[in-house]
């Protein structure tokens, strides 16, 4: 059935690659020569305040401007760094909570009911929302809270404690090459996330290579190559009718011989209900193990932050077939705030590595439970 899609791709590079032993994309090859100088450059930059920690501080904006200059080609109009609060404050969740506490200074059951409603509207899920609110209700009846503000604080703590256990940043220095296999359903932002990750790791001074494992969707290889060019990292590809596992195998070989530190492999989006396609992920992992028994070191599942309760079913299937070890939640810069993260954390406890808070390469942030929850709660209580 896949045959239908297997038309010859238009781009010339792939027409040559079957003949050449070296599958590494030509367009990126000259670029890799520049990687060295780019690393030196970025090292100088990262010697300045570590890019993650100052997320919530205003000074971060200054360092960001330096980075922003390098992103001229990425249609960037504003400084790259904005705080989580700024990013998330427009969220429906935050809005409804804020309005809730403006309108209801009174501490009563109605308040809790509305709180439950807000949580449900944020996709936290019926069960999780009910549990949270019932717990607060019990404590309220025990007169633990003096006013609504204290109740909100307690809620914040509850929410943070739900997410705290899954706040485990990804450490890519434990192996070399450290292989990251990205998986997820269609249209969640896998390729974009890889582009952003490539930027992040090059900024950290690591040698990065990308593997164009999405051989199915039209122009997915092109898309990844563009990201490769932007970040000046080599992209291994075989064109559109190639076998995904074989591309990734080649990439791993290339990464090993070149001493690349991080290899990020793309895969085609697939719905978790399609058994055959899901099995292919297993094959990719098996093939990798022939070269490196520890690979893939991280199976990173990308989840669309606007997804509702179906995210649970997605993660369950991907975890079972692909052995997901970490999550990236994307598209959190809209009005959806990924309340389903609470449900995922509760049900699976898999680490959330990064969150996508915007379009630009630097908008992929290391997940920070407190910053995330604070961004959702009214400003008077956060921080």
């Amino acid at each position: 059935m896949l045959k239908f899609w297997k038309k010859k791709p238009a781009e010339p590079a792939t027409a040559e690659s079957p003949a050449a032993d070296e599958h590494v994309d030509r367009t990126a090859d000259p670029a890799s020569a520049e990687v060295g100088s780019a690393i030196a450059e970025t090292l100088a930059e990262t010697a300045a305040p570590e890019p993650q920690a100052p997320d919530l501080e205003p000074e971060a904006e200054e360092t960001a401007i330096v980075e922003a200059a390098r992103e001229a080609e990425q249609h960037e109009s504003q400084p790259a760094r904005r705080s989580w609060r700024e990013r998330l404050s427009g969220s429906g969740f935050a809005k409804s909570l804020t309005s809730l506490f403006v309108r209801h200074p009174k501490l009563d059951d109605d308040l809790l009911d509305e709180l439950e409603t807000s949580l449900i509207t944020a996709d936290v899920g019926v069960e999780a929302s009910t549990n949270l609110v019932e717990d607060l209700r019990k404590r309220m009846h025990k007169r633990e809270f003096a006013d609504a503000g204290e109740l909100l604080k307690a809620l914040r703590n509850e929410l943070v404690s739900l997410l705290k256990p899954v706040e485990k940043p990804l450490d890519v220095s434990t192996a070399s090459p450290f292989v990251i296999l990205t998986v997820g359903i269609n249209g969640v932002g896998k390729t974009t996330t890889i582009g952003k990750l490539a930027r992040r790791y090059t900024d950290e001074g690591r040698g990065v290579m990308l593997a164009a494992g999405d051989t199915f969707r039209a122009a997915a290889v092109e898309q990844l190559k563009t990201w490769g060019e932007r970040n000046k990292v080599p992209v291994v590809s075989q064109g559109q009718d190639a076998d995904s596992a074989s591309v990734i195998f080649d990439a791993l070989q290339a990464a090993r011989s070149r001493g690349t530190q991080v290899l990020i492999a793309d895969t085609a989006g697939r719905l978790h209900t399609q058994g055959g396609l899901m099995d292919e992920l297993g094959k990719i992992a098996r093939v990798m193990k022939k070269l490196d028994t520890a690979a893939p070191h991280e199976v990173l599942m990308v989840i669309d932050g606007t997804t509702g309760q179906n995210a649970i079913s997605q993660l369950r299937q991907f975890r079972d077939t692909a052995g997901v070890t970490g999550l990236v939640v994307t598209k959190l810069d809209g009005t959806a705030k990924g309340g389903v993260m609470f449900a995922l954390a509760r049900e699976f406890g898999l680490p959330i590595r990064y969150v996508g808070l915007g379009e630009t390469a630097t908008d992929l942030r290391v997940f920070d439970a407190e910053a995330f929850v604070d961004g959702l709660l009214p400003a008077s209580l956060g921080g």
Partner: protein
Amino acid sequence: MFESLSQRLSETVNRLRGRGRLTEENIRETLREVRIALLEADVALPVVKALIERVKVRAVGQEVLKSLSPGQALVKVVSDELTTLMGAANTELNLAAQPPAIVLMAGLQGAGKTTTVGKLARFLKERKKKRVMVVSCDVYRPAAIEQLRTLAAQVDVSFFPSEAGQDPVAIAKAAVAAARREVIDVLLVDTAGRLHVDEAMMGEIKALHGALDPIETLFVVDSMTGQDAANVAKAFADALPLTGVVLTKTDGDARGGAALSVRYITGRPIKFLGAGEKSDALEPFHPDRVAQRILGMGDVLSLVEEVERKVDQEKAQKLAEKVIKGKRFDLNDMRDQLEQMSNMGGLAGLMDKLPGMSSIPDSVKSKVNDNELKRMVAIIGSMTKKERRHPDLLNGSRKARVARGSGTQPADVNRLLKQFMQMEKMMSKLSKGGSKGLLRQMRGAMKGMGGMGGMMPPR
């Protein structure tokens, strides 16, 4: 994808059995369950509230018809309301414009706009015999234009080339001019995914809409979207005069609440469903059929009852005759029953019709096939006539022979004999119970049969 919603609803209404009139009291609990079911299916809260309110108003005080159980009566009300919400019939794409008829696509990132353009192009070309041109105004995402070019080549429609540096509105205008020159019937305009809160991008698509004056503006939405579907749909409907909705990724297992939310918020019909990876996986959306699928619980229930009744009576009658004649239930009878089950579509076929099955993971479901049934029939078929009439004869060596003959293990033969023994035991009680008891017993027997696959839920 809608099965789980219907299943959840049918469960909740079952508790409403045996009450003569729907009152606010007796439907409160059920409506709460309906509310949770809808929320868990990702129907947006404002939509759920409106729906529940309307159901309450209509249901309270209603006499329950004799033919219906109170649960069914309430289901009927919910069903009617949901059908109203979903709309009555399929709304076709309106292409009644001076050619080229322009179709503009809009939606969030990753909703499936470009893929849908490819599918729609093929649909219009093959089924509507239209000359189709596609153009991409997505100058932002890397290789988005390339993606559409590839898709256009695959479905063999004209592609108007554009480049990343260009202005979307200029691209669109040039495409319209080209379409006119080439006497194209339909021009499909793909756009970049955009966040509804991104004012600049929303401004851009408004400008695009203004420049193109499309006859159809389709809002593409991922069927897995959660509560946010309401916000997104509202923002897009406010910014653009939408004419229809395309619901994508419906081949997953999402409960499809987003369909209801978007339909309710925008008031626009869902025109197509994207249901697969291939370019022909685009289905016109038939709200009436889907509403039936979501809410066909009444039908499902009656169907199941009917199936049960049929199975029970035929078998019961035959067996009853046998019992009356004083004969023993033997393996021949058992085989007849097994075969009858296969005739009804086998376990898998029966399962499909049963509510509650959607809660069972697909991985388990796929294991339930009729192999078990077939194997049991084969085991019995490998016995001699004498053995079938007198199963006691089966000693170790005979069992080994039967296992060899049927390609199974002696353990399988033993399991079958055990099941047979259970059934026989029940049969021997039948004569005491009269015909009603007989039916009841048979239902129990069916359950026992289900037990062999471990699958049939107790009903």
